[in-house]
């Protein structure tokens, strides 16, 4: 399903990607929040498959562990306790991680060529070999997902197990999920399943049940079924209408080519000037070797400093 020819977008790259293949089906992961029991098997399976081992944390008085995504925890369960208007408590558990947007803000913001790629099947993947650790992907992400590792200053996030999907398997979190809360398939199939599940939830009395597949980022390849789709913010701050920051568009869309052109024109003008006018002629300084006129002899001063073992203090 994935090979190098299937990359349809590549960060900071102007060469158009291969586009002849038109029959690659988009994949999606469907997370049915209403079925999640917060067991965190997905967190463990993710770490195991991706060869990550985050540091053992401390209990902060909640079930959130770790309390936030890190460069070594690509998915975390977020627990929120919501009190309804009629005084009932809802314990809402959401598996947080990369949403694999159809229009990824991280990829748009990334200045390192090839550090972020998008495959034809919809997976957005980070190639850490090319990452320069600038953190623009975090600014570009409407969901605040990527994290810079303090170990190597490179950015990491969920890959939707692109290596497993490539081999015809499902992501590790999907496979391990004991409650059938995480499912995987083509995006069309997942939308079908989600619609059925929303119908079930509505029949159970959740009038506002719905699918979370936000159009502001072109739709996502990780979708949620929410019992309160009218208020996604209730699920530990899931944005209602996520959009890529306008700063990313300004930086990559307008500012960057203009600035590059100005710098390029300046350099070009310099070359033209050099060719037409030649180098600037300076009068020969005949007394160049005379220390009295030179005033500052860098070589001698350095030698002096080396002679003093306790530094160059005078």
């Amino acid at each position: 399903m994935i090979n190098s020819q299937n990359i349809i977008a590549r960060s900071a790259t102007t060469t158009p990607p291969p586009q002849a293949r038109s029959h690659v089906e988009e994949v999606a992961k469907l997370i049915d929040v209403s079925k999640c029991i917060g067991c965190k098997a997905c967190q463990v399976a993710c770490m195991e498959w991706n060869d990550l081992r985050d540091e053992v944390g401390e209990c902060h008085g909640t079930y959130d562990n770790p309390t936030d995504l890190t460069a070594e925890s690509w998915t975390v369960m977020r627990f929120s306790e919501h009190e309804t208007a009629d005084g009932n408590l809802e314990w809402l558990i959401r598996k947080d991680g990369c949403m694999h947007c159809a229009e990824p803000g991280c990829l748009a913001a990334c200045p390192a060529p090839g550090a972020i790629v998008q495959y034809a099947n919809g997976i957005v993947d980070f190639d850490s070999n090319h990452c320069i650790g600038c953190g623009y992907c975090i600014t570009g992400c409407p969901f605040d997902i990527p994290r810079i590792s303090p170990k190597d200053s490179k950015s990491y996030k969920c890959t939707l197990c692109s290596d497993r999907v490539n081999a015809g398997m499902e992501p590790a979190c999907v496979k391990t999920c004991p409650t059938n809360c995480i499912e995987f398939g083509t995006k069309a199939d997942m939308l079908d399943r989600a619609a059925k599940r929303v119908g079930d939830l509505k029949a159970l009395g959740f009038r506002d049940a719905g699918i979370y597949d936000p159009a502001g980022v072109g739709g996502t390849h990780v979708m949620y079924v929410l019992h309160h789709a009218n208020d996604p913010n209730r699920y530990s701050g899931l944005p209602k209408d996520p959009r890529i920051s306008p700063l990313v568009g300004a930086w990559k869309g307008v500012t960057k080519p203009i600035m590059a052109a100005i710098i390029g024109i300046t350099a070009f003008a310099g070359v033209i000037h050099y060719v037409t006018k030649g180098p600037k002629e300076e009068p020969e300084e005949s007394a160049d070797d005379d220390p009295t006129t030179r005033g500052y002899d860098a070589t001698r001063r350095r030698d002096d400093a080396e002679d003093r073992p306790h530094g160059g203090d005078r």
Partner: protein
Amino acid sequence: MAINVTRRQFFKLGGAGLATSSLAVMGFAPEPAEASIRQFKLTHAKETRNTCTYCSVGCGILIYSKGDGAKNVEQNVFHIEGDPDHPVSRGSLCPKGAGLLDFVHSDGRLAYPQVREAGSDEWKRISWDEALGRIARHMKDDRDANFVQRNAQGQTVNHWTTTGFLAASGSSNEAGYITHKVVRTLGMVAFDNQARV
């Protein structure tokens, strides 16, 4: 090493650097050939079916080890995931099962029999032969001393209440049947599986 750069040379170098980097930004730079960015790590791994050791649910697992089993290769387990063909779990695993790999390689894992002698505070490594021999000896001595053939009313009971038996968790029906037969044959009454973890 000192590099003596005049002010003029500094400006030249800086200008050249700026010009080349801006040219690269405008697309005048060769692109590296794109290889597949993530390799599949189970290719040619040896796959072994097994049962999770943790609880009585007995989920099926697939153990992946490096090497294909050739005689010059030392096998090493490097990945474990659920067995989709197992009727109990159909490929899923709970967080404990999903983390079995670190259980396999744990430093604290018991890998051989040990004994703490009466009055000692140290665990001493012993051989399997010695361990099984001593356990059998203890069982025989205790059974000989405490086996009850008839109760106070003179009814035949044939039971042995001073020793208990805790069996494994991930046992099949057949293994449970055999365990039951062995234990009950000895007259043992206190008998449980590690079935309620």
